[in-house]
C-alpha cells in the first residue's frame, strides 16, 4: 500500500545544490493552483519526516501519531497559499507537525479543548520563518552530525542514534528496547534537539549580526 517514491531529501543530495527545495517550490506552486498530483507528491515526500517527528513523542500512541500526521497535512495543505517561501515547505510543515503534537499533549494535560492554533502556526511560519537568514540545508545537516559526534558515549547518544540516525524505531519502541520509561526517551531526544537548536540559533544570530 505505501506508495511513496521519494523521502525527505538525503543529506548527500543537499550538498552543492538545493535540488530538493527547488522541487518543493515547484510542487507548491502547482498545488496552489489546484494540481492534485502536486499535493500527492508533497505528501509522499514529507510524510516519512512528519511521521518520524510525531513518533519522537513517546506519550503519543500509534493512533495518535497517525492523527497528528493527518492533521498536519490537512492544515498545511489548507494554508498552502499563505506560505511565503515555497522552497521552505519542509521546515514549514515540520513546524506544523511539532505544534500539532504539542497541542495534542497539552490538550490531554488540560483535559479540555484548546483554542485553534492555526493562527499561531501561520504567524510563526509565514512571518518570522520567511525572514530568517538562510544557512544551507546541507550546512545544518552537517551541524547536526557534529553535535551527535560531540555527545559522550552513553544513553543519550544511543537514543539519538536509534531514533534519528537509524530511523526505524519510535520513542516508545526505543524505551522498550532500552528498558527505560517512555518519558526518559522523550527527555533525551528533547535535550538533544535543544543542543541542535542552540547551535542553529547561534548561526542565525551570527548572520543577523553580520548584516549590520
Amino acid at each position: 500500500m505505501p506508495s511513496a517514491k521519494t523521502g525527505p531529501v538525503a543529506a548527500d543530495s543537499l550538498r552543492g545544490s538545493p535540488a530538493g527545495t527547488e522541487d518543493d517550490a515547484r510542487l507548491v506552486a502547482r498545488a496552489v493552483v489546484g494540481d492534485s498530483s502536486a499535493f500527492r507528491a508533497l505528501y509522499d515526500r514529507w510524510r516519512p519526516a512528519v511521521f518520524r517527528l510525531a513518533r519522537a513523542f513517546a506519550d503519543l500512541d500509534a493512533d495518535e501519531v497517525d492523527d497528528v500526521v493527518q492533521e498536519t497535512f490537512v492544515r498545511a495543505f489548507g494554508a498552502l497559499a499563505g506560505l511565503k517561501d515555497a522552497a521552505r515547505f519542509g521546515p514549514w510543515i515540520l513546524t506544523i507537525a511539532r505544534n500539532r503534537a504539542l497541542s495534542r499533549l497539552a490538550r490531554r494535560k488540560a483535559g479540555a479543548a484548546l483554542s485553534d492554533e492555526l493562527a499561531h502556526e501561520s504567524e510563526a511560519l509565514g512571518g518570522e520563518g520567511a525572514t530568517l537568514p538562510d544557512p544551507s540545508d546541507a550546512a545544518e545537516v552537517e551541524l547536526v552530525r557534529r553535535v551527535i559526534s560531540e555527545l559522550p558515549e552513553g544513553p543519550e547518544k544511543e537514543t539519538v542514534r536509534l531514533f534519528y540516525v537509524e530511523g526505524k524505531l519510535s520513542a516508545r519502541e526505543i524505551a522498550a528496547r532500552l528498558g527505560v520509561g517512555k518519558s526518559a526517551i522523550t527527555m533525551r531526544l528533547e535535550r538533544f534537539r535543544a543542543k541542535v537548536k542552540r547551535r542553529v540559533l547561534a548561526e542565525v544570530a551570527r548572520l543577523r549580526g553580520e548584516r549590520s
Partner: protein
Amino acid sequence: MHLTELTLGRLLDGTLAPAEARALAAHLERSCEECEAFLASRTRADAADGRVDRALSALAADAEAGAGNDLEFARIQQALRSGRPGRRLARLATLAAVALAVGVVALQVGLDRTRPERDAWDGVKGLPASAVPLRLRFLVALPGEAGGPPRLEKGAGGATVPAQAGLQFQLEAGREAHAVLVRVSRSGEAEVFWRGSVSPGAPLEVAVEGRPAAYPLEGLSGPQRFVLLASPEPLSPDRIAAAARALAPPGRVSPDRPDLEGLSFDAVEVTVR
C-alpha cells in the same frame, strides 16, 4: 546573555540589534545548559524548530520508514473538502457512547479456540495491499463493574488484553470492495466472523442487527491475529482459506505471496491473557 522568550522572538523576527545578535551568537556557540533547558521546555514550535527538524529528518538511514498510503491521503483530501480535520476522534467517542448505551452483543463463532498460540507477531499495521486501501482498528470492550455496561478502551496492536474482553472492530476502506474479518489460527484456518461490503467515507463499525458487536476472546490465549481481507471481487471460501494459510501466524506476512495476489488486507494482533 541567556535566551528568553523576548530575545528569541526578536532574534527570529529580525528586530534584535546587530550588536545584541553578535553577543547572542557568541553566547550560543558555547554550551549553555540554561539556554538548552529553556529551549527544551518550550511548548510552541517556531520557525527555527522547523529547520532543526528538517536537518534531523535528513539523517535517517531508513528514509522510507513511515511512507504514506492511499487511504491516509484520501482521508486528508476528504478532510480538506469537508473542512473538519478532527472528525475521526469524535466519531470514536460517539461509537463508545453508543456501545455503552446499547450494550455489546457477542458474535457467534463456531471454531475450536482451545489451543493456545505462541510466538507473538509485532502488531505492525499497514501491510502493503494491492487493490483496496484498508485500515483495521479496534476497541477493547471490558466487562462493566457490577454488571454495568461494558467499558470501551482504544485498542493498540500488540497489546495484552484479558480473556473476558471482546474486540469491537472498525474498518476503513479507500474504495468499494467486498470484505471479510477473520481470525487466523496458527494452522492457517480462517474463522470468518464478519462479512460485508466496505466503501470510502466514514469508518464502518462491525455490528450485528444494527448494534455494535464485539468479538469475544473467552477461551483464547496467547497471540491472536485478526485480518481484514478485501477485494473488488466477491471473496469465495476457497480464496479466503488460501489467504488465511498465507497469513497464518507467527511472523510477518509477505504481501508477495501468490495466495494474496489481488487481495488487500490489514491486520492487528493482541495477546490474550
